[in-house]
């Protein structure tokens, strides 16, 4: 009697956990929890439209940078240079379109195109180092990132650059449509494009195959070198876009601009990889990005004026907790698999 009772109790317990999907949807639950906790704690500030808009808009550059990290990451390739590439993009924009005629004073459109070309070339170089010189991507892009940072410092004389952009350009960064910051639409468009390529085209399949088992993929006819190289070019291009969006929105350059965005971008990708599909993916990345962003906003409001330390503290702890949860899930999966193979 007692055994059958415990048996009955056991079964729904397991299926309930599965149904709730605490592992695959943990970021969504976390997001919900933040909204409730901080909503109750600071209802007047946290639950206002202003702060929601602020969070939506503030994280667009981080989001695009996260996409930049995501694409090569799907091919098991790291691109750590994207932070430096982003600041390269901002400083190039400032340099080329400076209205005070210290330098080129180009129309913003032309400056943006040149900036993107520069960034794409950097991606081509890192691809060359990884594919042709066969340097591990982690090391190659870490090194190249330092080199680019040096160039950025040289161009900017390590000074803060402000107030260089035309009013029309700034509009591209600060307007709102339907009450939503315009930059958010840029992120959405970029996300949809990357999602489409990764999930619904052969190229996406090839990128994931390269990430899964490069030698097996190569022997199955996937041009793995091209995938790695191409994904590094795409990531630098996207980092360039992140820099241009940042220029339009913030209009300010300091040497810390890019590198400060690198960690949150990587955190969103890693956390996102444990979401939905159990592999790096766009939707998971976005959910993780905004779950973390709303959490940080809430904490900043609670802590008040001394909140400068909140950001890294929160990013770091959540990343570790999230990934450890995911690896617990991986362990459980492995145990299950061992049981199944008799």
């Amino acid at each position: 009697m007692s055994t059958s009772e415990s048996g009955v109790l056991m079964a729904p317990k397991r299926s309930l956990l599965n149904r709730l999907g605490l592992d695959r949807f943990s970021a969504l639950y976390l997001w919900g929890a933040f909204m409730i906790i901080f909503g109750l704690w600071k209802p007047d500030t946290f639950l206002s439209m202003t702060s929601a808009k602020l969070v939506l808009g503030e994280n667009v550059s981080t989001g695009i940078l996260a996409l930049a990290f995501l694409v090569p990451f799907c091919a098991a390739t790291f691109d750590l240079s994207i932070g430096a590439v982003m600041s390269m993009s901002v400083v190039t924009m400032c340099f080329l379109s400076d209205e005070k005629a210290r330098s080129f004073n180009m129309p913003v459109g032309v400056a943006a195109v040149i900036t993107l070309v520069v960034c794409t070339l950097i991606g081509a170089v890192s691809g060359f180092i990884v594919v042709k010189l066969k340097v591990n991507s982690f090391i190659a892009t870490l090194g190249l990132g330092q080199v680019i940072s040096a160039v950025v410092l040289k161009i900017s004389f390590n000074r803060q650059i402000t107030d260089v952009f035309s009013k029309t350009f700034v509009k591209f960064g600060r307007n709102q449509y339907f009450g939503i910051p315009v930059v958010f639409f840029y992120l959405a468009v970029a996300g949809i494009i990357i999602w489409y390529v990764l999930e619904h085209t052969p190229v996406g399949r090839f990128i994931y195959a390269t990430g899964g088992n490069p030698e097996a993929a190569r022997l199955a006819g996937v041009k793995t070198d091209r995938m790695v190289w191409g994904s590094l070019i795409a990531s630098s291009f996207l980092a360039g876009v992140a820099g241009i969006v940042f220029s339009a929105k913030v209009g300010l350059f300091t040497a810390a601009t890019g590198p400060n965005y690198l960690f949150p971008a990587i955190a969103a990708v890693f956390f996102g990889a444990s979401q939905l599909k159990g592999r790096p993916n766009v939707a998971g990345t976005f959910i993780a990005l905004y779950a973390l962003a709303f959490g940080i906003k809430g904490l900043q409001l609670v802590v008040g004026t001394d909140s400068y330390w909140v950001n890294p503290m929160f990013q770091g702890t959540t990343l570790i907790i999230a990934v450890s949860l995911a690896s617990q899930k991986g362990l459980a999966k492995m145990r299950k698999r061992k049981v199944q193979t008799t």
Partner: protein
Amino acid sequence: MAKILHIWSLSKSFPGQVALQDATFDVEEGEVHALVGQNGSGKSTLIKVLAGFHKPDPGHNVTMRDEVFEIGDAAAAHRAGIRFVHQDLGLVEAVSAVENLALGFGYRTGFGRRINWKKETLKTKQALLDLGFDIDVRVPVAALGGAARTGVAIARALQESEQNISILILDEPTASLPGADVDRLFDAIRRLKTRGIAVVFVSHHLEEVFEIADRVTVLRDAKVVATVEASDLDMSSLIELIVGRKVTAATVNRSIDQTLEPRLRVEDLWGPGMNDVSLEVRPGEVLGVAGLTGSGRDTLIPMLSGAMERLGNVSIDGVAIRAGNPSAAIAAGLAFVPADRLRNGIISMMSVRSNTTIANVGRNKTGLRLNHKKERAETQDWISQLSVVTTSSEAPISTLSGGNQQKVMMARSFRLDPKVLLLDEPTQGVDIGAKEEIHTFVDAAAANGSAVVIASTDSAELARLCDRVIVMHRGQIVDTIVRGEGSMAQSIDKVLLAGSSLATN
């Protein structure tokens, strides 16, 4: 002989599945006992319960040397003198045999807790010599051959207080060993037998059962079907026990139109271990490649497929194929199933569907978009054609058994409708049922006009499939055996033996 381990009515069930049902099994002192059965028949479960990896269902009765034995407990199994060597050996590849042994037992330290390397080295050397392996114990085990690595794993399992060890259990020790290495391993097993240690081993290679086993236990569908003296069996009766029905291997009856131009033409092939090899294969012809490891048999297909670098001309229907470029070779009509399925074949994190279609994803495209629905339907088609056992086309391929993963690899190649099909050890680690299905598909590919090349260490397999078998030795073709000249398998083995005696002289 005295029975040391006796198991009555052992069962193990997992949620939704009975993996072992009412099994009776015993081990006699100093015997070699083979455990055979198809994938999923329950032999691994039996071993895992013995090893204490799984707890059995209640209701069993187990004795070890006439005392009640707590089965399903790793520590108790160890105390009772049962040792295990698992299929992956569990060695640390980057360090030496000495260190691998010490990892299991601890280093002997001298003054100042300094490791006494000299003593450790001597001890390891002796342990391996006792098993018949005279090897350098100081090089990383990764540099050792397959048999020697297994030897190191056995030596590690047997060290310390050997008088207490009564049973050694080897899980598929020969699964990835070439022929000559199998002989060395069997030599080691015979030595263990003379030391009074009973050896239980799992194998898919039935000829090994007859070579070395005293008794055989056959499992089928989670049940023990029979335990018999090996001498009372012949091959067909053993297969019938394993499969549960009579398996009649189809006999090949192909006629190759010799007037047709060769589909695959290889001229002056050079490369690591390959010395100027030329060959031709016509449409509908199946060419076998036999030879020991290192003879060129193991590198021929990787070189042709572009996995390995090479010199020389390879052409398909007159179109030259560049070296080291698998995607160009595939575009020219070549398809290829690699020998090392886990490393070079499957992409384990991806689904059965993605693994099936990866070599030509574009086929199921509508405009720029991948048509997932069409792709799923195509994969489902292959799953039923090859009777792949999987929950669905979306299941990760890592959840499939080895034989079924191999069928997916076959589907990946066949769906390219290849002009030239290269198969490297196509049925290694695959159970008998799946093996015959794979063979039938090779016949179909040949009937379809493909030129097929199969490299295999299994002479019976080559005899079953091939019209012509080349035997390789030191990177050269030393003999060609054509169907119709008596027993092909015997001829192949004869040449192989002659070759290996050449090599040792």
